[in-house]
């Protein structure tokens, strides 16, 4: 075991959690957590020497002491989070405050037959065999330090499960509020999304940091897509100016299944989102649609990895970033096409708009292609505002600031335009207008 100073606090916290366990913990869950901790202790926090983390230092996270939120969730009112999290107030939702499931703010209403929306704790009790078979199956604690850490402290989270052929008509919202009040807190939300053959759903994970205080949210979502399912997954992340956020979305898609994963990152001191999609069946497809905005001294890192294992799968990826101030953004787009994945169609685009001279972006497409009958393309751009476009707008009477705002909004709009939930898209449009109009 390599225990360094920075991992020490987590090892100690783990021992403490183990010994103070008030609830009876099934043996398999104990073993899963132990394995997670062992991995984390062995791997330690990633450093800049680690290729996948070479532009993102997690030193600020490693250097900070965090406590687990205790059972008494701080007073949070509906008005604190309902509107800002951009959810539909009438739709089914599970709410977590500092990582702890809060039934008082959650509502599922009447769900369709075969659609299950429940807390992880309840799911483990009610469907233990499925939980045993699914948890940790795709998100590897072995090689990913933050996944390992989340697995070690696995407790609260959400499960959305759809039976074969079932369809959830309304979007399902999972809301994670970090209060950032008091001593800095770490939370480990863990999600399981299980989609039966031919099922359909839209699921929104909305992360919100209140108050500007420091906290660390380390979230992991495992998404298991059965054959021919159609799933839209949304991740909206609005962390506080001092908030840290590391997330993993790990999806395994069987034949014919279609995943559209939208990722919108609007704020946070240090954010790293990992998206890993395995196209594990013929004709599976994924669309990754991402927007990231950063300002001040913020750091936002989107690491995506798409694996084409079987033939005839398609992946389409568009990530766009708008950076101001001294912000730093990183985009890593890895595509691996296995030898048997013939007729693969993979397209990747990353575009970045720099609004200030001090903003920095590192963009790194990585293609590993082992099949020979494929179509793969990638492109990335980093640029300032288009001078011609700016002049054109000014020549019609728009002031410089107004023209720049319009162009920033326009840049973001093709990502936002693809969001398939009307109220979310409208709320985001309002947000963008307010953000760019603030200058």
């Amino acid at each position, binding site marked *: 075991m390599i225990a360094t100073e920075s991992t020490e606090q987590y090892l100690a916290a783990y021992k403490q959690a183990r010994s103070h366990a008030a609830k009876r913990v099934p043996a398999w869950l104990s073993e899963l957590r132990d394995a997670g901790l062992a991995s984390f202790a062995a791997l330690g926090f990633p450093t800049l020497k680690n290729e996948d983390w070479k532009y993102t230092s997690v030193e600020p996270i490693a250097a900070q002491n965090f406590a687990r939120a205790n059972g008494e969730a701080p007073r949070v009112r509906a008005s604190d989070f309902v509107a800002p999290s951009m959810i539909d107030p009438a739709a089914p939702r599970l709410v977590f405050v500092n990582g702890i499931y809060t039934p008082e703010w959650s509502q599922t209403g009447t769900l369709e037959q075969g659609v299950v929306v429940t807390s992880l704790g309840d799911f483990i009790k009610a469907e233990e065999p499925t939980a045993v078979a699914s948890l940790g199956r795709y998100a590897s604690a072995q090689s990913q330090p933050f996944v390992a850490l989340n697995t070690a402290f696995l407790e609260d989270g959400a499960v959305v499960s759809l039976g074969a052929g079932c369809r959830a008509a309304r979007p399902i919202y999972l809301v994670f509020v970090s209060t950032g009040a008091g001593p800095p807190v770490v939370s480990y939300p863990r999600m399981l999304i299980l989609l039966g053959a031919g099922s359909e759903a839209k699921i929104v994970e909305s992360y919100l940091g209140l108050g500007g205080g420091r906290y660390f949210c380390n979230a992991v979502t495992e998404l298991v897509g059965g054959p021919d399912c159609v799933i839209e997954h949304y991740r909206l992340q609005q962390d506080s100016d001092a908030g840290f956020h590391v997330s993993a979305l790990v999806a395994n898609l069987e034949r014919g299944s279609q995943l559209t994963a939208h990722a919108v990152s609007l704020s946070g001191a240090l954010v790293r989102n990992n998206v890993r999609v395995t196209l594990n069946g013929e004709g599976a497809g994924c669309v990754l649609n991402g927007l990231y905005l950063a300002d001040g001294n913020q750091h936002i890192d989107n690491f995506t990895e798409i694996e084409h294992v079987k033939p005839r799968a398609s992946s389409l990826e568009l990530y766009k970033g708008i950076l101001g101030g001294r912000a730093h953004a990183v985009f890593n787009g890895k595509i691996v096409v296995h030898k048997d994945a013939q007729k693969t169609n993979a397209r990747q685009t990353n575009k970045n708009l720099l609004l200030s001279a001090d903003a920095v972006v590192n963009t790194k497409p990585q293609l590993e292609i082992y099949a020979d009958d494929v179509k793969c393309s990638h492109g990335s751009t980093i640029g300032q505002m288009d001078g011609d*476009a700016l*002049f*054109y707008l000014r*020549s*019609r*009477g728009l*002031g410089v600031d*107004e023209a720049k705002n319009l162009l920033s909004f*326009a840049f973001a709009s093709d990502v936002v335009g693809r969001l398939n939930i009307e109220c979310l898209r409208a709320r985001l449009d309002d947000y963008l207008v307010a953000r760019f109009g603030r200058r």
Partner: protein
Amino acid sequence: MLEIKGLRAKVGNKEILRGIDLHIGSGEVHAIMGPNGSGKSTLAHVLSGRENYEVTNGSVTYLGKDLLAMSPEVRAREGVFLAFQYPVEIPGVSTTYFLKAALNAVRKHRGLDELDAMEFLALIKDKLKLVEMDQVLANRPLNEGFSGGEKKRNEILQMAVLDPTLALLDETDSGLDIDALRVVAKGVNALRRSDRAMLVITHYQRLLDYIVPDFIHVLYDGRIVKSGTKELALELESKGYDWLKSEVAAVH
């Protein structure tokens, strides 16, 4: 309305305009013709306030005010409109949205109330008919995927909405087939008014059959070397620019 005196301008180290004198009165339509590289577009860009162009000498007075001292947006709000030779594509912004913002900026400058979405849609309806465009096209992202003809008609649509006092048309006919040309010319002609002036910049005489000018000036090597009425265009058409070049050379 517009008084240009001794205007000299350069791009980088290259001097392009070498002393332009031009007077345009209210209600007049002036055409500027000339071979490639003569400075036609440069003149349009200098008048509209494009940044890369540096004025080294001379003055431009518009409605009694110093035009060169105004930023591009102020010139626009004061009533100067440039129809671009190569209109810019702006994905993510619809013509309707952007035109409403522009019109409101102009109205605000003139002390008028801003229009809301409904009022604006009502206003734009007539203007769309003028250039034979439909609302669908106007709702699409600005110029994105538009044909050459559609882009030029979009320029005239903007002109119709913004109601300028001085319109500069920079090679509005370039890249247009005869049908598109007719529609664009029809739109421009419908906007002729006694309190409005136009400067039509073109390489070919053909446009001037449709937009008949009051005066024609020929620009060569950064200077206006000949001025006349519409017959001058026909003479150029039959004799070509080379004739003019030798005439100029002979004088010097």
